[in-house]
Every structure is written in structure tokens, then in C-alpha cells.
């Protein structure tokens, strides 16, 4: 049987369609989930965030430490004068192990900065 179909027909029919009963356990499940969420200590994100900041600080520490060591070891006082008013351009230390330490420090620093993004990607549904 074909019924003439107009906007009103769709509207009326759609409104009069029966509603299936909700699952009997819906209330109990929802309330249990709410209780679980409310009782769960919210420490995980804080701990995770702290770990990322520690990585950033550690990376910076390694870079600054290695640079400072280079300056002290070379016996040359650091020159903070801007190159625009006559100072020589700052160059990466030629010393291999120092350059390696600075590189590792930068990697740790970047890993710490990117950490929250990676965590978010992992926690995506």
C-alpha cells in the first residue's frame, strides 16, 4: 500500500512512531558510572603533566649545563653582547661530547614539550 507522502505526512508519522522501552538497567548503570567517575581520584593527568614539565626542565638543564661547562672549561668569559654592536656571533661548541650533550638535552626538551600532545592522541577514543 502506498501512502501519499507530504512533509506533513512525514512529520505526523515520525512523531507518532512508538518509543521502545529503555533498557531496565539504564538507571543503575548510569548511576554506577557517575559514582565511579566521582570517586576516582583525579591524579593521573596531574602526574602526567608534571612528568612532561620535568622532562622540559631536565632538557633545559642539560643544555645550559653543557654550555656553561664549555665556557668554564675553555676559560673564556661568556660574551652576552649583541652581535649588532660588535660581538662575535655565538657558535655551537666545537667539542664533540659537549655538542652531543647539548643535542641530547634539546631532544629531551622537545620530547617534554610534545609529551602532552602524544598523551592526548593516545587517549582519543
Amino acid at each position: 500500500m502506498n501512502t501519499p507522502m507530504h512533509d506533513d505526512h512525514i512529520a505526523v508519522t515520525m512523531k507518532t512512531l512508538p518509543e521502545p522501552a529503555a533498557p531496565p538497567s539504564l538507571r543503575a548503570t548510569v548511576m554506577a558510572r557517575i559514582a565511579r567517575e566521582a570517586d576516582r581520584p583525579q591524579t593521573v593527568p596531574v602526574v602526567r603533566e608534571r612528568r612532561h614539565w620535568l622532562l622540559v626542565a631536565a632538557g633545559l638543564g642539560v643544555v645550559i649545563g653543557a654550555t656553561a661547562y664549555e665556557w668554564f672549561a675553555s676559560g673564556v668569559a661568556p660574551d652576552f653582547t649583541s652581535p649588532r654592536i660588535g660581538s662575535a656571533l655565538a657558535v655551537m661548541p666545537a667539542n664533540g661530547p659537549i655538542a652531543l650533550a647539548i643535542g641530547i638535552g634539546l631532544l629531551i626538551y622537545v620530547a617534554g614539550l610534545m609529551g602532552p600532545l602524544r598523551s592526548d592522541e593516545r587517549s582519543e577514543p
Partner: protein
Amino acid sequence: MTEPDADVVRTAIADVRRGDRDAYGRIVDHYGRRLFGLALMMTRDPSAAEEVAQDAFVRAFQHLDDYDQGRPFYPWISTITVRLAQNWLVARTRVTTREGTGLDAVAPPIAPGADPLATLITDEGDRQLWESVAALPSGERTSVILYYRQDMSVGDIARALGVTSGTIKTLLFRARARLRLAMGEAPPGTKAPGTSTSGTATS
């Protein structure tokens, strides 16, 4: 717009805000059936609909502070449900459009008699229309359900689904054309077909 059951919601929410978490159960009881029905219409999968309804209630509880008590509660929580159901559909079909919402995902065929809603409909014409709606691609089906069943405006549907009003108008236009074909009527401006058309979900 006022809700006939606004008092139930208002007192329940006031109790929840005073720290009585169990008062939220009254809201679940009150809207459980409607939200489950909405989720079931959108997902056509009872277990998914239950999951969506649960998630919607839990999320609404978590964001209860954002709810403006001057406005009706049902449109607020039903928008949460619609978004969650749409996310479920997108995750399931893994089809994305230019707008990234999967609105053109084609509804997978459902076995005859397996549609839990169709089995509840006694009128043959109504069942035929619902089965035609259920066979629409998910974006068109969602638009029809929200526009005709939920009485949402085109703008509200667009906001809930994160697309433009034009997209919703197009989806409704296409859905109406498909429904006319499915019900054996000629689309406007064409000759009336002699027989009804099956396979409405294919685009």
C-alpha cells in the same frame, strides 16, 4: 519554549547541586526512554543506543554546571545524545566527507525483522515510512529524525552536528526525494513511476 516536566527537572537538578547525587536518577528515569529511542533511531543498534544513552547521561551530569536552567532540559541533553550517536556512526562507518562528519555514510542494510523499532509499529503505512527512513544514509536519516521527530530547527541541527545549515537543507531535500521514491511517488516535476522503488539507501 516550556517543558511540561520542567518542575521534575528543576527540583532534581537543585538536589544534585546540593550534593544529592542520587537525585540524578530521577532525570535518568524521566528521559531514559526518549533518549534511548532517539539513539536507537540514529544508530539502529540497541547495544550502541544503550551505550550512547548512558554516555549522554554521564556527560550531562559532568557538565550540569553548564546547563542554563532558564532553558528546557530535553533539547540540551538530546543535543549531547545526537553528537554522541553521530560520533558512533562516524567511528563505525569511517567515511568522512569534506566537512569531516561522515554525513554521507551509507546505512548498512538491516535484516528484515531485525529493526527493533519496526517491530513495534503496527500500522503498515507507518512501518513502510520508517523502514524507508531507516534505510537512508546516516546523515539524511539523522536530519529527518531531528527535524521531523525532535522538532529541531535546521540551525539547531546544523549546530548539533557541526555542519552548515545549507548542508542540513541539502540532506533534508535529498531525504525527501528518496522517501518519495521509496513510497512510490514521483519526485516533483517528473512523471509518476508505476512501481515503488527499493534500495533507497544507495546514492
